């Protein structure tokens, strides 16, 4: 009896997932589709940009957010993306020398900024990097400087301030900035250095770090060589750097490049 109910439910689920075409599936055959690989710090900003672009050009945009390193590896191995927006510049250059992207399309689209974060409601007063020396701050969370651009920038800032050696034992590393933020929001780290684009005023105190403290976080993007929608892909890259696109980007804490 119980088994029958279970089987029925199972069958229903299987049929729903296999037999029915989801709406996106059917529409995609009529409208042009772009698949965009983007660094995870872009999650909020690009979602809005995507919506605006869809309205304008009557097409479907799907995103694959991930860490820059992982996405670059996937593209080098032939992943079917149309556009790649990285969290740094070097990756784009590397892909270019290997011939995975259309050289003339690569362009800077944002300059990332970082800041010191403590959780709202924390009694700790952390405004400057020196404040991180406070012994009450036991753990400081940043993204892994070995491969995450924002983690590297955080480390550079601490080195410039001459604090790195004294603070190194306090550091914990998230595999990307969002995980670094998780350590802070779950109160396992008292403070951290994360991207301005992930700032959430209702949740945290954020103190911007002077951009001269670290090498510029130059975020570049380009059209992938294997794209089948080259024209539309080029339009998307242009759109990000258009007036409308820049407005959205700066809303989410990115510094957009000067013309």
């Amino acid at each position, binding site marked *: 009896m119980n088994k029958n109910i279970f089987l029925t439910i199972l069958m229903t689920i299987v049929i729903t997932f296999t037999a029915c075409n989801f709406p996106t599936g059917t529409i995609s055959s009529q409208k042009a589709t772009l698949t965009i690989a983007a660094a995870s710090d872009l999650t909020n900003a690009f979602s809005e940009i995507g919506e605006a672009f869809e309205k304008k050009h009557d097409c479907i945009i799907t995103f694959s957010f991930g860490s820059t390193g*992982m996405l670059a590896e996937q593209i080098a191995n032939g992943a079917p993306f149309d556009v790649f927006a990285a969290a740094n510049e070097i990756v784009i250059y590397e892909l270019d020398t290997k011939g995975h992207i259309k050289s003339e399309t690569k362009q800077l689209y944002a300059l990332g900024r970082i800041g010191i974060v403590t959780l709202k409601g924390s009694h700790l007063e952390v405004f400057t990097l020196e404040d991180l020396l406070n012994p009450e701050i036991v753990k400081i969370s940043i993204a892994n400087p070995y*491969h995450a651009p924002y983690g590297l920038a955080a480390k550079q800032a601490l080195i410039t301030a001459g604090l790195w050696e004294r603070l190194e034992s306090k550091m914990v*590393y998230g595999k990307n900035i969002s995980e670094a933020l998780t350590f802070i929001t779950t109160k396992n780290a008292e403070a951290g250095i994360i991207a301005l684009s992930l700032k959430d005023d209702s949740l945290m105190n954020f103190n911007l770090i002077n951009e001269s403290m670290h090498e510029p976080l130059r975020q570049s993007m380009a059209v992938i060589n294997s794209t089948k929608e080259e024209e539309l892909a080029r339009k998307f890259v242009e759109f990000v750097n258009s007036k409308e696109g820049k407005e959205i980007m700066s809303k989410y804490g990115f510094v957009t490049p000067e013309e």
Partner: protein
Amino acid sequence: MDNINLFPLYLSFRVAITATIISFIIGIPFAYFLSKRDGKVTDFMDTLTNLPVVLPPTVLGYYLLILLGRQSPIGAFMENTFGKMIVFTPTGAIIASTVVSIPYLIKSSKTSFVEINEDYLNAARLLGRNELNIFFTIVLPIAWRGILAGITMSFVRALGDFGTTLMVSGSIPNKTMTMPIAIYDALQAGDKYMANLLVFIMTSIAIIFLFTINLLERKMRKG
């Protein structure tokens, strides 16, 4: 070539061995208990045991971060009383590895416990032995093959754990960075040479380990 840091390898082994020992000490009695009882509570506990196998590692890691984190009752107690943290330490990595690997040990041992003919135990009882004595002289020797398989699976799983350990340990170089995390980092950084080398070492070790266990098992079977 010269700057290959073997610390992750050492740490991975330390973590995996400790996790396997803990899994053994906790898992074997628990598996025996599960194999002897029938009922809703046992079923529920059985299901709970298998949860780490099914849940995504990040979810598991997040749970542990909340449960053992510095703000949790357990974590706060450890930090305030002993000045020791669980998360961001090798201890955290060991706990994470134990949680992800113990289901394999429990499942495999439980199956071989269930398969033991109850008559063996009854015969031993009537020959004057108590339950603990029977467990060591009859149950373990008869079920050892399943237990060994469980230990192997559990160890290899602990050695290879990435997602959960990463969440709990904070991937601090020379402190909590295990082999799989080092491999991930090398890959992310595009350091292919390092990544390939680490992958090669890891794979070789896993193969050698499984092979040794196999050999050992065949030898023991021959008696």
